[in-house]
């Protein structure tokens, strides 16, 4: 097919540019560890009270500076609505929805996942700086959607706060 010379050059540059973008993304994902959420298993949303780990939502320490948070999303709250972890800890959230679709977003982190009834969502993020973070529901879930959020208090990493986090 006869194609204008300049257009040919432009086409090759376009292809090259898109390749570079894609490779950059893959390198960040598979070598830099910035990966998308993977399936976390199935669960019956009406049996959460009897299904571990969702029968006991809350924070658990699973290693040095490593925590697991089990959470339930429902109209229009996260359970638990407040969690505390020390600064510098890596937190894995295991979340599911009891009713409709919800969203899970912690602004200024890479934690962003959909919550779909029947599916368990898993997302891991590291809280470097102390302060108050928020989990925001970012999927429309009914008339109270705009009131659905939870608080994460990232406390200065003292041994005392670590102990308290462990208790909770």
């Amino acid at each position, binding site marked *: 097919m*006869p194609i204008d010379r300049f257009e040919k050059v432009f086409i090759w540059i376009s292809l090259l540019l898109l390749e570079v973008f894609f490779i950059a993304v893959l390198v960040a994902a598979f070598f830099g560890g910035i990966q998308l959420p993977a399936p976390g298993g199935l669960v019956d949303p009406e049996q959460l009270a009897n299904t571990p780990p969702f029968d006991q939502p809350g924070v658990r320490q699973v290693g040095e500076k490593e925590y697991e948070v089990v959470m339930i999303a429902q109209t229009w709250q996260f359970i638990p609505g407040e969690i505390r972890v020390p600064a510098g800890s890596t937190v894995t959230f295991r979340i599911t929805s009891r009713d409709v679709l919800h969203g899970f977003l912690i602004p200024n982190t890479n934690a*962003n996942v959909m919550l779909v009834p029947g599916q368990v969502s898993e997302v891991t993020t590291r809280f470097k700086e102390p302060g108050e973070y928020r989990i925001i529901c970012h999927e*429309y879930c009914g*008339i109270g959607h*705009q009131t659905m959020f939870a608080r994460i208090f990232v406390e200065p990493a003292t041994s005392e706060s670590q102990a308290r986090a462990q208790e909770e």
Partner: protein
Amino acid sequence: MQAQQFRPHDRFVLWQLYIALAAIFLGVIMGFFQALERMNIDLFKLFGFASYYQGLTLHGVLNVLVFTTAFIGAFLTYVTMRSLGRPMASYRLTALQFVLMVVGVLLAGWKMLDNSSSVLFTFYPPLQAHPLFYVGLVFVVLSSWVTFLNIALTVRAWQRDHPGEAVPLQAFLSLVVYLMWFIASIGVAAEVLVLLIPWSLGLVERTDPQLARTLFWFTGHAIVYFWLLPAYISWYTMLPKQVGSKLLSDPLTRLVFLMFLLFSVPVGFHHQFVDPGVPVMWKTIHAALTYAVFFPSMITFFSVIASLEMAGRARGGKGLFGWITKLPWNDPSVTAQLLAGIGFMFGGISGLINASYNLNQVVHNTSFVPGHFHLTVGTGVFLSYLGILYWLIPALTGRKLWQPRLGVVSSWLWLVGVSIFSRGQIAGGLEGMPRRTWMAAATYVFESWRIPNMMTAVGGTLMFLGAMSFFAVLLGTLFLSRERVTVSMPVADVITPPEAASPLFTRQLGLWVTVLIVLIMITYGPYMISYLSNPAFVARGFRVW
């Protein structure tokens, strides 16, 4: 003679455009209310709407499901007849397409207005709308399938009369658009017919929300190309004529559309990058193909701008950018499409960010996304459609365009407005502001969202004024314009004719469709088989609005 044969079809084309325009009129007003809500001005209550979310449902459904589908059906029916020089194959199908659209709009509109179906345009279960809302949407899609059938029959009839010849460009492109859409729409059709309607009627108790999302997004990305490609038909084959230039290459244009045919569908998981029920491998494959579907838009960028530059230079434009000022900016149809192109460039770039795999985590479901798509569908597509209507309405009614200057102003207002609006939404999104959320009532507002919200309100107001200027021109043309004109469809001459390329790009549609089906089987097949071996039909319906 020809005009007389076209007239019965044209009547339905015109009335279908009126439906599209009525839908977008209400949709735009809802958008304006949403924008003002960002400044704590609540017009929803004042005008008797149940909530922000009822308005948001109307905004999404009317703008991107009804307006687009009705406009495209009318426009491409009109284009096919002119391109082939013959009326549509079936008058009954033209009538049926219109009737189905009317029924669909009335049913879905009724169920949105009574607040029984405030589920937004994505209608994700387990939010459960009234059954007639889904039925209405089915009718809208059926209408588009009838259009497809009619265009295909018309092209086939032409081919019988012209054996061995390449189908004229505009009809060929119209057919490719509908072929792609028909195959793409099977996903949402399956979702609504198999999952949602029986479930909303109570025939089955539980549905699978993850499966529903996957079926929805099978269609949900391709649908944006269904909206965009009719605008591309205008940019490639009409706009060059309107500015006094030529289309560079007929076969390359066909190849671009065939690439869209291939790559529009097997990319749906890029809307589900952060879904829990989709393995990472499938997300990666769809991410790769998403880059592929960006490629034909890059070629379009070159081809269309090259046509425009030739026109500007022929009119005495000098220098690197001097030719731009020489384009006929006083023509409202041209201005609308040029500004659509400018908005679309930024829309495309922001879209590449959304679609970039792990980068999506930064912006998924934040206001970055509406910031992005108000530049693409909300400007690239919408302004192009307005540009088309600025000649199409006079062509169909024989009335001279009323106040064309106001028409020029309307597009500028829109572009300036959307630039502010989208800048605000994108900035807010990067700061974690969620999309489609009733911000004025939110209990967690961040200080960093204050200026983004103000920009949304100010930009949205300018967009509203732009749209209202358009409606003023439209209504003026229909009711105040006394002068009669004969306007015909602009058709650009081409520099490189179809005969210059292999018939692969001009005739062998069957082969391309086969490749598409194989591609779909590779990108969705194994995932669907493994998902369906252990689905999660666990969700009852909820009506929580």
